[in-house]
């Protein structure tokens, strides 16, 4: 809760000091009728002194009300509900790809340490991490959609299935591939490198000798002993990557016209649709906190030595 309140306060302050008048944009931007302008300020409480505006905002948050969009004139929570599923689906797909790919590549590099495979993996990892996502997305689009015609260029599709008991419409799956792959390639490198380092470090542990001495096969030793013991740093990277993807896939959403929340928030900054920015950022902060919490819980499961106690 303190984290959320601090985030709320920081975002509010930033937006308050951002030049540009929201009422002005609502009233027409280039040529605004002064009476309409005043009336809009009154409607949204923008004519009140800053401390009063801030307290009103805090009061709303504490009541669980994220406010109403100046532009769309509907609750911010409804806007988040509209856009977050697209972001979540993209992040899940990307993290599955990047975790899978990263683990496989990292394992290969660790197994063939110092050999050609290792060098290639490290090089690819470096490339993936360094390439700007925006550029990578466009290249993938040009190759797989424009040139080869295997996948759609962009978008979410119009005819995906609706999740039962919700109004959430899933993307058409082929539309998901390129944006997910773009995000995955960008983060796969980091996962592969951490996986490699962690596996190599674990690989020198004495208990592996013991396992081998007991007659366990190489594959079994790797899967049950090395990989399991090397997982904590890998899971940390994957988890943080996932949390980041939930809020920060803006460039990919932009390139592939993906109707996600990140792009919506950036757009709202441009429109000075302050409630959407404030509510959106607060929501993403909450998600980030939840993912971190889930990560801490995951450590308990992965490594029985980890335990949290009141006295600790």
């Amino acid at each position, binding site marked *: 809760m303190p984290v959320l309140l601090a985030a709320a306060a920081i975002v509010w302050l930033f937006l308050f000091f951002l030049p540009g008048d929201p009422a002005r944009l609502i009233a027409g931007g280039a040529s605004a009728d002064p009476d309409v302008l005043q009336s809009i300020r009154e409607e949204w409480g923008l004519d009140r002194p800053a401390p009063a505006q801030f307290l009103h905002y805090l009061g709303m948050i504490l009541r669980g009300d994220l406010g109403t969009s100046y532009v769309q004139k509907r609750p911010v929570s409804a806007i988040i509900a509209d856009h977050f599923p697209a972001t979540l689906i993209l992040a899940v797909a990307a993290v599955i790809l990047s975790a899978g790919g990263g683990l496989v590549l990292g394992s290969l590099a660790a197994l063939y340490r110092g050999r050609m495979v290792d060098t290639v993996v490290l090089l690819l990892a470096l490339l993936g991490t360094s390439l700007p996502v925006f550029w990578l997305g466009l290249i993938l689009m040009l190759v797989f*959609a424009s040139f080869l*015609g295997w996948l759609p260029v962009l978008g979410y599709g119009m005819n995906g299935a609706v999740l039962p008991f919700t109004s959430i419409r899933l993307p058409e799956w082929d539309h998901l591939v390129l944006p997910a792959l773009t995000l995955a390639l960008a983060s796969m490198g980091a996962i592969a490198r951490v996986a490699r380092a962690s596996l190599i470090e674990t690989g020198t542990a004495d208990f592996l000798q013991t396992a081998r001495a007991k007659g366990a096969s190489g594959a079994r030793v790797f899967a049950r002993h090395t990989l399991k013991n090397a997982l904590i740093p890998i899971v940390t990277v994957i988890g943080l990557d996932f949390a980041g993807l939930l809020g920060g896939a803006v460039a990919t959403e932009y390139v592939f*016209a993906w109707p996600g929340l990140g792009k919506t928030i950036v757009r709202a900054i441009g429109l000075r649709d302050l409630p959407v920015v404030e509510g959106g950022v607060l929501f993403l902060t909450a998600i980030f906190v939840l993912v971190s919490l889930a990560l801490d819980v995951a450590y308990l499961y992965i490594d029985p030595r980890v335990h949290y106690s009141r006295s600790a």
Partner: protein
Amino acid sequence: MKSRHLVVPALLAAALWPCLSCGRTQKPAAPAEQAFRFRLHEDPPTLDPALANDQFSEAIVLNVHRGLVELDPGTLEVRPAVAESYTISPDGRTYTFLLRDGVFFHNGRKVAPGDVVYSFERILRKETNSPRRFLLEPIEGATEFTEGKSPSIAGVSTPDDRTVVLRLSKPFAPFLPQLTMTNTAIVPREAYEDPRKGYLRAPVGCGPFRFSRWEQGNFIELLAFDRYYGGRPALDRVVVRMIENATSALQEYIAGGLDSLDETPDPGDTAMMAKVGSEIRKYPFIGTGYIGFNMAVAPFKGNAALRQAFNYAVDKEYLWNVLMPGGNRPANGIIPPGIPGHDPDLPGYPHDEAKARSLLAKAGFPSGKGLPPIALWVNTGEENRRIAEQVQSDLKKVGIEVSIREVDWAAYIAGVSGTRDKPGQAQMFRFGWYLDYPDADAILRPLLHSSNWGPAGNFGRYKNREVDAFIDQALDTADPKARADLYRRAERIAVMDDPPWIFLAYMESRTLYKPYVKGVVLSPLGEFRLPLDRLRIERGAT
């Protein structure tokens, strides 16, 4: 625990999953369906005609709604729409509209004169906060109604079940063109007084297309309205897709996911031009681009010679013919071609560095010496940046140092317009103005009349009594030729004697259309104000 053995293979499969969908090709639209797909950069801020104030909102509103009159997109003449005919009294104050019989809203109800009254009251009502309230303010009693002093608009009456009479407080020549704006569309009360405000997400009108679906950030779908008074449109379906990134949108157009695109490739991009160059339609549209001076602050305040020097220093021919070819045309003045009052013989300011230098000296700043630091503001965008850099470089050649300040639209508007009492920070600013309707009043009054000083549109705080007088006189003049002449005279003073801007460009639209899209009207109203009821798809045709 056994399932953990499956982790690695499962992840491998996931990593390889993209290849499972290899071999996919673009699905062609069903041949029987007439569907048209075009792109907007982003979601329209609103689909409420009373609030629509930007080209993206208008692009949708225009096709869902209809008002009493409309503009012919080709000739820009006013023609009846929901009104079958109209008459204007000899004193220019009373407008009588006879409604068509058999105009239906999308909810199935017949349009009645009471709907016109309701729609107009809705725009004027204070709580609607319509940015286009001014369109109806010439009607007698409109202001009193807005201020709550009167329960109805005195100048609006409905003598019978097919007639609407509007009485103006005084003759106002551009009133009819103003009524063509989509904001004054006729809407059904029952839909627009819904307490849940469903109309914000699902507008109801009486236009050729009815609203179907809107997925934010993804698409808006419109369907043909069978009972449209003008006859069911040829297109069965219109899909408006939100694609912000221009490069991606162009790829989507080439791949066949869009039938039209407002973005054309750079003429220097030969590979791309080879693909789509033949599909580019280029046409003038009613807008003027300029760099405004802030005339409330030094050094431009009261110094016409300095502003003239800036005008001569900038090479518009180079800008539009060499640096950024294929787009806009160099401007001589304010009123763009196609608008009555445009003056093709206006000399303007052809590039002349010698004249610029001598005027600079006359203005008190020989070779630019003594000029304070000047910042040229632009809103974020590559084209704006390139224009600003070229202007900066041209000015430098005659000794004028200008810095560029690039900020986002909201910060830009705040910095440029200031408040009513305090001028904006920006000393120079790049701007483009698209006329809402084809009348010189739609550019001269908002941008240069002193009554619109500051945030109301006259950002440069230009005040020239003669220009004001001509603009006012033209409003009271009914004869179109005499009006055009008055605007020409106002423009000549504002351009040649006391320039408020560097006159940069008459705008041109460039739009891509697939060859199978027929019935396209290259309208000077711009690529987004495209009436879709005339379009049809003829696949196989060239």
